[in-house]
């Protein structure tokens, strides 16, 4: 089963602390949504509000068009997969998975059969008579998934389910989660602080910070065309270069930066049209820099820079560069494996115009 979820102006305060600040979010049925953000950003609070473990101080929650704001967890078409798995330690796996069905009054033989089916889905059919303490972390995690799915929820809520696993297992489980979500078609809302995990599994990522949504979009959109400085910085390494809008025309804007004056198309301004005189920040990913070789169309020249440090990362060299025009600015630039780099080299820096994102504000504000 699957259902759309709609959060309207949800706010949650704990005393003087605002955990969630006027958040609105539309999730389509069958979508895999990831709530991403640092700890304390409100993502778990939002998930708890969806699951019914918390009720919002203001605003409302609709699931499949039905009002759910003050409905108890047991009566919601949602199930939650907890970070610590929360398996019943005294029950066999099949009884763990069948628990929700038992609560719905299903007879023993029928629910055992169904539980076995879901254990099969997560590859643990043969362990059905084991108890949770006999399993590894990854296996427990799968049982928790099977248990949550066994009651055919319309929406599955996952609270950092992969947080306790080691990196390799986490990457493997991500693929499995994604595959299982495709098979069952249930709406998944997944909370994590790991942006790689978010990109690996999400249909859409919701980047959150300080109780607000910073950015929503497909992983590539969020990474390539972030709509907030926080989102740009959180999704991966990025260079922030401060500037000021000096001139505007209907299709482009001229920005003065420490690395020179640059004219960019208005599409580079992802967070809205620029205003003359506005303080802005350039966001450039390390892998987007190029060596300026002659005059090339659509390439923005950023002047000469000198390599101050470099390390080989396999797929690329990660270099620190100090631009000649602004020596206190340290840029992180990825250079091709095949290039020869050494400290002190002068590099003519450039970046394709389409890869530059300009956002209002300065990094000091965030």
């Amino acid at each position, binding site marked *: 089963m699957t259902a759309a979820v709609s959060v309207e102006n949800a706010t949650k305060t704990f005393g003087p602390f605002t955990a969630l600040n006027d958040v609105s979010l539309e999730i389509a049925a069958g979508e895999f949504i990831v709530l991403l953000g640092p700890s304390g950003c409100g993502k778990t609070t939002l998930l708890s509000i969806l*699951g*019914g*473990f918390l009720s919002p101080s203001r605003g409302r929650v609709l699931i499949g068009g039905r009002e759910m704001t003050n409905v*108890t*967890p*047991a009566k919601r078409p*949602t*199930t*939650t997969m*907890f*970070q*610590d798995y*929360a*398996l*019943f*330690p*005294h*029950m066999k796996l099949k009884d763990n998975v069948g*628990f*929700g069905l038992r*609560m*719905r009054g299903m007879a023993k033989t029928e629910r055992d059969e169904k539980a076995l089916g879901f254990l099969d889905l997560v590859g643990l059919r043969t362990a059905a008579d084991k*108890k949770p*303490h006999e399993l590894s972390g990854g296996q427990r995690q799968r049982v928790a998934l099977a*248990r*949550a799915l066994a*009651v055919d929820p319309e929406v599955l809520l996952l609270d950092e389910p992969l947080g306790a696993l080691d990196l390799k297992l986490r990457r493997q489980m991500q693929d499995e989660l994604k595959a299982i979500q495709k098979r069952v078609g249930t709406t998944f809302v997944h909370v994590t602080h790991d942006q790689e995990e978010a990109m690996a599994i999400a249909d859409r990522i919701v980047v959150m910070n300080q109780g607000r949504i910073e950015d929503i979009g497909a992983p590539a959109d969020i990474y390539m065309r972030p709509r907030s400085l926080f989102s740009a910085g959180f999704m991966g390494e990025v260079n922030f270069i401060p500037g000021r809008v000096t001139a505007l025309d209907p299709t482009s804007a001229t920005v003065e930066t420490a690395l020179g004056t640059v004219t960019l198309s208005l599409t580079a301004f992802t967070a809205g049209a620029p205003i003359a005189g506005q303080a802005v920040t350039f966001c450039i990913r390390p892998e987007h820099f190029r060596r300026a070789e002659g005059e090339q169309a659509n390439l923005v020249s950023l002047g000469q820079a000198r390599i101050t440090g470099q390390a080989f990362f396999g797929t690329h060299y990660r270099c620190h560069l100090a631009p000649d025009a602004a020596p206190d600015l340290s840029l992180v630039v990825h250079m091709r494996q095949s290039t020869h780099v050494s400290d002190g080299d002068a590099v003519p820096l450039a970046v394709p115009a389409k890869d530059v994102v300009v956002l209002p504000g300065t990094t000091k504000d965030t």
Partner: protein
Amino acid sequence: MRNVLISTVSWVYATLIFGFIFLPVAVLVLFSFQDGRLPVPPFNGFSTQWYAAVFADRKLMAALANSFVVALVSSLIACLLGFLAAYALARHKLPGSALQRGLLIAPMTVSYLIIALGLLTVLNTFGIPLSLWTVGVGHVVINLPLCFAIIYSSMGDHHINIERAARDLGASDFKVMVLVTAPMLMPSILAAFFLSVTFSWDEFIIAFLLSRFDVTLPVEIWSLLRSGLNPKTNAIGSLVFLVSVAALLLLEFTLFRKSGKS
């Protein structure tokens, strides 16, 4: 050399300590097999006649049965009440919860004599006749704090998510308690139960002051002792000891099994 000395000293120390604790019991058990009228040295020979006498004594056997019933029923009630109190205080925000916890544990610090006298006054005031029931009530009063403390201390925060998961899957509060919380806490509930059984089984002052016609075993033994020393009292004492040991072993076994597995 130094190690040998330390290990010798610790062995001697352990022997003395255990001797001090268990010698009286050993002597009691030994002289319950005395072939003669007095349970004092010299040991005249081995005989089970006093055990035969114990099992033939209807009053003693009735007291034994009474003790069993009182121990089991009062411990069951104490465990149930202790569990409910622990659940409420661990899982819900209650007004003055620190005070309530204190009040629940407070009877532990009051002497059994005071508790017995207090109960006696209350029972008299309300005109409730003394019986095994009143003894049971007394034992619930002394064992409830123990049961509460043991069970409460084992209710960790890591259980909260598990209960939450059960609720999320559609379980009512009652079902969460019966199907999830209580089974998870079973080791400590059993520990509390068996400890209260042994305490109730051995308890004399409350049983003595709050009973009339039907009495528990310690009270019956006390009345036997009034007519002088007799290997029969040793025999019944050995039996009492045996039952306590059995209860403790059972507790150890069940706890060990549970904790050894997970």
